[in-house]
Structure formats: structure tokens, C-alpha cells
């Protein structure tokens, strides 16, 4: 087996008396999508913040391409080719979209003392990259703070995808996204994998996790329950994992209890079936067409 | 008075020629600007300003009083610049820092504006082309105070300074300690807070507790004298530790009368405000000048003997 792109061994993280992570090991290799699953508060965001250099692990080792590293700031991780979409997005509300997009990696033109921020280029790239995600901004000079939740998240994703060189880390990137935009993000992930990047993908949506993930690491209350390849687990098991290991059935009962008519829930079932068929249909079509 | 002109040498005769055109201006058209380093909120300068205003009324001329809001001579030089640009008929300035203010004053002189200096700057007045200096140097006043306190038998005194770094106050302190040293006594400087009487009092008490051999206090103004007196009262050391101060206030005079304060050094700063306006008015309307380069307004000493007489005047803010 080749060396993983990034790997953590027996990592723990404490905040004061809070144990956020306890003895976690995991890794991502090139051309692989690793899904990080777990209930709310399981420690997923904390783990990826360690990977991206925001936090330093309280215990344990962190290896990039087999060599131990001690990132003391996200800048180090970025320069090692690790780009991250944080759950809180890491945006400057008062700054314009295009300045946010390129913050920390500004394109320049000219040379010597005349080297300057290439504003026109930054605006163009930002507009293009966002358009690719289906977001059409009115004005790239609009402050990010006035964007809608989904628009803001799209900017963060577009930025990470644009700058990610080796590893792409996405912390619930599709949470605020519409159906269409979420689909585009999934496509991005697949594209990145095809280009040989390692991707770490956190989501609470099983419809997003299962189709795209190659391996699944399950966190629960700060501990790891192990890593499983797609071959090892079934869809239901994944959903179970995402719920923190609890049976979903209880849940469906409760939901059903409050449904006012049987016909209504029957419909839910029907529509899910339809969705499945539709997706299958799409696959067959694409096979025929060959390309977009 | 006209005879004085001849004695005054080149400076004043050139002034005369420049301003002869305005020799007979009506008083009500005259406008004089006073720029000093003392804020209107400072009790010493408050009396100066009172003199300025009164003289303006008495002479029937327009007067304006300006000062920087902190002891900052660059700011003061800008005020003089503005005053000069507004083309007044005369300018009164204090000169605590001749280096900083000299160029601006020279600009005024060059523009043909008669300038009188007050309070500080007697040593440079002539060089800058100023008509006359009214006042007394802070150093001399301090020196006089030191001599008196030395005579009173004080061996270890505190100089209570409410604004360490302020050149005028430092000069008072320096004069005081030079005279005391000559008399064989020791002087420490104690910084107090001019905006907080309680803190000042507590600080004086702390100092008196930690250096019990202190037997004299010299406050550089009523702002320091009031808390110093309160400290002595609260420690039951009134009389035992001799207290003196610069400048007057009704409270200080009451205390002198009672014998709680030994003496107050009085520069009669009212004159420093009043006289220049009179002199400028006369210069403008009658081309009068003064023969002496310096008109001394002090130091005068107010003691138990003469405190009674000035107490009402201080109440009115003119002493």
C-alpha cells in the first residue's frame, strides 16, 4: 500500500476539561474520498481543524506523506497543499466576494515595487468559479456578509477547490446549499478524486455520503469506531453510523406517529422510490451520451 | 513716555515705522489676540484671562484668549500662526519654549504685528523683537520661595508637582530646590494628579508616612495645596510640617490667615493679563512704549499679615 497523503495516529484533543477527541487514527490516500461520519458533537470538525493546522493535537502524531509535521498555523497546511472548507466558512463579512476569494493567495501583476493585486483578474476568476457552481453574483464587490447562507458557502467551496493542490477537506459543505448546488459540489468532489487529490468529506446527508465515499470513518462522542471501505458496509450501516450507532427505526416510528394520514407517508415512500429511479435513469442516459 | 522710544533701540523704532499708519485707529476697531500655554481651566491662567477680559472692557478693545488644550508647544505654535494669519492689531504670548515658539513669533513681528510677551520668556523677548515682557520668570519665583522656606528652618522639603514635565512648573521646582540646597536643605519631587484631589491627598500622605523626616511642603499651585492641606489635617501635622504654595485661591488665603499655610508666592498674574492689553492699546492709539525691557509683576509674598486684604479679591478671581 502506498503512503497515505495525510494520516493521524492516536490523536487526542482537549479543551480545558472537555475531551473533544480521544485516540483517533485515520488516513487519506491520493485519489480517494474519505467520509467522516458521526453524530452532532462527535468531534468531526475538531479533527479536521487539526488536519488543517487550526488546532494542534494535545496528543498523537500527524503525518503528511509519511513525514511527521507540526503545523502551527493553517498557512503551513495550505502551503503543503491542504485546502479546507470550514464549517464556519472562514469568511471576512465586510470584505468583498473577490477579495475574500483570494485572501491569503492574491494574484499579482507587475514586478518589484510595482507588483500589485490584480483586481480585474481576481474579479473575473471569482465570477467564473462561482458561475460554475451555479451561483451568479450581482457584483463581486458585494460584501460577503450580505450574501445568503448558501451563496456564502459556495464562495468558500469554490475557493478551496480552486486552491486545493493535494488534499481537499470539506466540513459539511452542502449544509446550506440548494439541491442543484449540492449536486455540483458532489461533482466537484468526484472531479478532485479523478485528478488524484485526497478528499475528506463530512456530511450528515446519507444521500450525499454513500454514493461518493470510498472509505468511511466513524466518530462517536470523541472516539473512533474504525474505518470501513465501501465493500465492507451496507447503506443501512452507514446511516446507522451517521446516527451515532443508533437504530433509525425508532425514529421512523416517531415520525410516522405524527403523520396525519397513512396516505401521506405512503407518498413519502413512493417519492423516495421515484428519486432512486430517476438517478438510475440518469446514469443510463449518461452512459449513452458519453459526456455532458 | 515718548522719550522712551529713543532709548528702546532699533527694534522698537522699526516697529514704530511699520505701524505708524495705524497710529490713530479708533479703539473699538482694535483686536488683540492672547495666546498662552495656560489653559483657561488652569486656576493661575484663569486669573490672567480675567485680567485680559477686564482690560479689553476698560480699553474698549476686542480681545481673544487662546491656549492649546495640553502642554504641547507645537500646538501652541500653530495657534500663534493662526492668530497671525487673522491679522490682529496686537499679539500677547507666553514663551515657555523659545525654540518652538520663536519662529511663529518672528513671523508676527515680521508681519508688523506688535507683540508683548508675558509670564515666561523674559530672557528671549528682546531677541525676538518683542515690545516688552510683562511678568516674572518661574525660576526666580521658585528661588524666592526656597529662600523663605529655608529661613523658616525647613530641612527636607517636598516639591508637589501636579504636572511633571511641564516646563513652567519644573522651573518653579528647580528654583525652589536650588535655593533650598543653598540653605542646606534637601528637596524631593512628588508627582500628584491635578484632576483628582483625593488621589493627590493620599499620595502626599503615603509620602509623608514613608519619609517621616519631611518637614516642609511646597505646592506648585492651589491644585496641589488643597490636597496637601487636607493630608496634613488628616495626619494631624498642620503647623508641624510647613506648607507653602504658589498662586492664590480663597481657600489658600483662608488657610494663610489661620496660619495653616506659611505663605503663598504671588506673581500678580492679573497684571500679566491686564497690562499688555493696556500697553498694546496705547501703542496702537498713541505709539507709547515702555523703556524697560521687562515689567516685573512679582514675586510677591502673601503671608498671615496681608492675607486679609486680598481675600475678597481672590474670591472675585482677580488675585
Amino acid at each position, binding site marked *: 500500500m502506498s503512503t497515505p497523503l495525510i494520516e493521524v495516529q492516536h490523536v487526542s484533543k482537549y479543551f480545558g476539561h472537555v475531551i473533544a477527541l480521544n485516540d483517533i487514527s485515520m488516513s487519506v490516500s491520493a485519489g480517494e474520498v474519505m467520509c467522516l461520519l458521526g453524530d452532532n458533537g462527535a468531534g468531526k470538525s475538531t479533527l479536521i481543524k487539526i488536519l488543517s493546522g487550526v488546532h494542534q493535537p494535545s496528543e498523537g502524531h500527524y503525518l503528511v506523506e509519511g513525514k511527521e509535521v507540526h503545523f502551527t498555523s493553517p498557512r503551513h497546511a495550505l502551503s503543503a497543499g491542504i485546502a479546507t472548507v470550514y464549517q464556519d466558512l472562514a469568511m471576512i463579512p465586510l470584505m468583498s466576494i473577490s477579495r475574500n476569494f483570494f485572501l491569503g493567495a492574491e494574484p499579482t501583476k507587475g514586478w518589484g515595487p510595482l507588483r500589485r493585486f490584480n483586481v480585474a483578474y481576481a474579479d473575473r476568476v471569482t465570477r467564473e468559479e462561482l458561475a460554475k457552481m451555479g451561483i451568479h453574483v450581482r457584483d463581486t464587490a458585494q460584501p460577503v456578509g450580505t450574501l445568503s447562507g448558501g451563496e456564502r458557502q459556495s464562495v468558500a467551496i469554490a475557493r478551496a477547490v480552486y486552491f486545493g493542490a493535494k488534499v481537499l477537506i470539506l466540513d459539511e459543505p452542502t449544509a446550506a446549499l440548494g439541491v442543484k448546488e449540492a449536486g455540483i459540489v458532489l461533482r466537484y468532489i468526484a472531479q478532485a478524486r479523478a485528478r488524484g487529490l485526497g478528499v475528506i468529506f463530512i456530511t450528515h446527508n446519507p444521500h450525499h455520503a454513500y454514493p461518493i465515499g470510498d472509505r468511511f470513518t466513524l466518530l462517536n462522542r470523541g472516539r473512533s469506531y474504525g474505518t470501513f471501505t465501501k465493500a465492507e458496509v451496507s447503506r443501512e450501516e452507514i446511516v446507522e453510523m451517521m446516527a451515532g450507532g443508533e437504530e433509525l427505526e425508532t425514529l421512523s416510528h416517531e415520525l410516522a406517529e405524527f403523520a396525519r394520514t397513512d396516505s401521506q407517508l405512503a407518498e413519502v415512500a413512493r417519492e423516495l422510490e421515484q428519486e432512486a429511479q430517476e438517478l438510475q435513469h440518469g446514469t443510463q442516459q449518461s452512459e449513452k451520451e458519453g459526456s455532458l | 513716555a515718548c522719550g522712551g522710544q529713543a532709548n528702546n533701540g532699533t527694534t522698537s523704532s522699526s516697529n514704530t515705522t511699520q505701524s505708524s499708519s495705524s497710529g490713530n485707529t479708533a479703539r473699538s476697531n482694535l483686536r488683540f489676540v492672547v495666546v498662552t500655554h495656560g489653559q483657561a481651566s488652569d486656576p493661575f491662567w484663569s486669573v490672567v484671562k480675567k485680567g485680559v477680559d477686564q482690560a479689553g472692557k476698560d480699553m474698549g478693545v476686542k480681545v481673544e484668549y487662546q491656549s492649546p488644550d495640553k502642554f504641547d508647544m507645537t500646538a501652541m505654535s500653530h495657534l500663534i500662526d493662526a492668530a497671525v494669519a487673522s491679522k490682529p492689531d496686537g499679539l500677547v504670548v507666553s514663551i515657555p519654549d523659545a525654540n518652538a515658539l520663536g519662529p511663529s513669533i518672528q513671523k508676527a513681528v515680521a508681519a508688523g504685528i506688535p507683540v508683548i510677551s508675558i509670564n515666561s520668556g523674559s530672557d528671549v523677548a528682546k531677541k525676538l523683537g518683542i515690545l516688552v515682557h510683562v511678568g516674572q520668570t518661574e525660576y526666580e519665583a521658585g528661588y524666592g520661595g526656597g529662600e523663605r522656606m529655608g529661613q523658616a528652618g525647613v530641612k527636607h522639603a517636598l516639591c508637589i508637582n501636579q504636572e511633571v514635565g511641564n516646563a513652567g512648573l519644573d522651573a518653579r521646582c528647580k528654583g525652589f530646590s536650588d535655593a533650598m540646597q543653598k540653605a542646606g536643605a534637601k528637596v524631593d519631587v512628588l508627582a500628584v494628579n491635578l484632576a483628582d484631589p*483625593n488621589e493627590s491627598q493620599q499620595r502626599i500622605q503615603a509620602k509623608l508616612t514613608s519619609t517621616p523626616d519631611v518637614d516642609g511642603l511646597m505646592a506648585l499651585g492651589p491644585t496641589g495645596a488643597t490636597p496637601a492641606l487636607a493630608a496634613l489635617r488628616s495626619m494631624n501635622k498642620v503647623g508641624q510640617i510647613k506648607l507653602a504654595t504658589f498662586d492664590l485661591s480663597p481657600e489658600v488665603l483662608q488657610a494663610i490667615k489661620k496660619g495653616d499655610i506659611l505663605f503663598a508666592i504671588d506673581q500678580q498674574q492679573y497684571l500679566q493679563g491686564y497690562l499688555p492689553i493696556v500697553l498694546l492699546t496705547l501703542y496702537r492709539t498713541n505709539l507709547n512704549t515702555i523703556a524697560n525691557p521687562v515689567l516685573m509683576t512679582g514675586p510677591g509674598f502673601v503671608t498671615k499679615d496681608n492675607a486679609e486684604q486680598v481675600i475678597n479679591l481672590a474670591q472675585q478671581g482677580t488675585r
Partner: protein
Amino acid sequence: MSITTTGPQGTGKDERVTKVNPLRSLLVRPEMGAIAGSIAVWIFFAIVAGNSGFLTLSGTATYLSVSAELGILAVAVALLMIGGEFDLSIGSMIGATSMIITILSAQFGWNIWASILVAVVFALAIGFLNGYLVLRTGLPSFIVTLGSLYIIRGVTIGVTRALTGRTQVGGLDLAPGYDSAHAIFASPITIGGASFPIEIVWWLVIAALATWVLLRTSFGNWIFGVGGDVQAARNVGVPVKRVKITLFMMTALAACLLAAIQAITFTGSDVLRGQDNEFLTIIAVVVGGTLLTGGYGSAIGSVFGALIFGMVRQGIVFAGVDADWYQAFLGVMLLLAVLLNSYVRKYALEVRR
């Protein structure tokens, strides 16, 4: 594949927290840094200036008195700063209200209690205006109250000189009602031969009251809310305007109380009184663990912040530091106190098993 399900543990022990020394967890409170700082400063001066009177009762009285005057302001300002605002006008408010009391009573012969009432009404009105302007215009309170700082100071100087011809007015001890006012605002309490001014009692009572309000009332909760995130607080229904305006009014009131204490103690007033107090107060509050950005802090902390300040200021005198070096020394002590403060807090938060 096997998954061991861990059921939710309602109220029992939680495996996701480490055991922690209860003493250490105490250190997380905002005021603990300032308490530690107070002790350190006290020990420092006990060693350096112990034999020159710092340790005596009367030495203690001098620094407590300085702390109390700063502390009365600091407690109110702490609440205001937790609520996310500044008030730079308190310094000139002290000068203005003490001048109101002095002029009305010493010049015009009013009963002192009537003058105090007028001063209180004046202070509340200005406090209201400050708050109203800040909320109405959305301008930072730093700027708005800087404006009122200048205006109040300027008007005080102008009016005082117009009315009395001077900048210092005395003779308050001759006004009617002086004795009762003196008993309440300025009478010393003698303990073991040293006289402790009664303002120390005022200080502690106000601090206790503020702590109660902050930690045990709805209003206190709102203060934290508006300071922490004003938009979020408004969205969950906190009456933001009412809270902030009340805080501004309380701050002005504290300044008025201090002004009354000083005017009556020194039987007079000076237009410059209180100058720069605004910054000293902010320092004391921040040293006391309150965040400059609002939303976090404590009233008790400001008590210890003011105590540190009083001890340093007076301790320097006891230690016999030369006047020229006074400010340098003050700066160093201040920095050390805040550093210790932040170190204590970090230590408390980074506890390991």
C-alpha cells in the same frame, strides 16, 4: 463490522470530560486573574515598601481610598463594557456634577441635598442622551462620548467662569445641609487609629449590587446578551435600547456619586476634576477581566482591578520611586498585572488531566 452503541447518558457522569481540580476550574471565572494580580502586587510592595508604611493600617487606608474612588466608577463601567459600550464622558461628568453641587450650594446658597438632586438629574439626562445618540445613530460609543467629553468639559469651564470668574470654587462647608451630607458621603471610619473614608463602603455596596444584577437578574442576562452579539440579542427579543440606555445612565450616576463624595470631602470643586479618569477606569475594568469587546466580564473583577491600581499608584510612593520615573513604573506594573491576569486565565483553560 461491529458497532458498539453508546447510549446517551442523561445526567450521570460523562466520559467526554476529564476530572479537574476544583480549584483550577475556579480560575476560569473572569475575576480570578485580577485577584491573583492583587495578591502579587500586594506581596511585591509588602517586600519593597513594607518598612516604609505600606503595611500599616493608615497605609492600607490610603490605597483603599484611591481604589474606592476609581472602583465606584469601575463597577458601573464594567457593566457598561460588558454591555458592549464605552463612556469616555465620565471624566468630565465628574467635573460637571461636582461643579453643579458646589456652585448651587456655595455660590447660591442652596441646600446641599437639593444641589445633589439637580446634579443627579443632570447626570441621568446626559447618560440618557449619550445612550440615545449611540443607539439612534449607530455610531461607536467611543466617538459619541468623546464628543460629550469635550462638550461637557467645555461647558463646565465656560459656565463656571461666567458665573464665578474662577475655575476652582470652594466654600461648600458653609452650605446648608453640609453636615448630613458629610456624614453620608465623606465621614471617615476610624479603625485601629487609621481613618478609612466611607467611600470604601459605597464602593463595596455598589459592587455587591452590580454583581447581583449581573448574575441573578434578567437584566444582567440582557447585559451579557447585548454585549456579546447585539444583533442576536435583538433577534431573540432583548430590549436592546432600554438595556444600553440604562447602562449609560447608571454610569453617569456613578460619576455623579463620586463627584458628590469629592466635592463634599474637599468642600469645593475644580473644573478639571476627573480628567483622564475615563481611561484609568477602562484600564481597571480590563485588568479586572472584562473583555474590551463586550459580552464577558464581572463586577467583582473591576473591584480587584481598581484595587491593583490603587496599590500600584500608592505603592510607588511608599517605595520612594522618583517622580520622574513614576509614569514608567506605573506602566510596567500595569503591564505585569494584565500579563499575570491573562496567564492565569490561559492556565485555567488549558488544564490537562
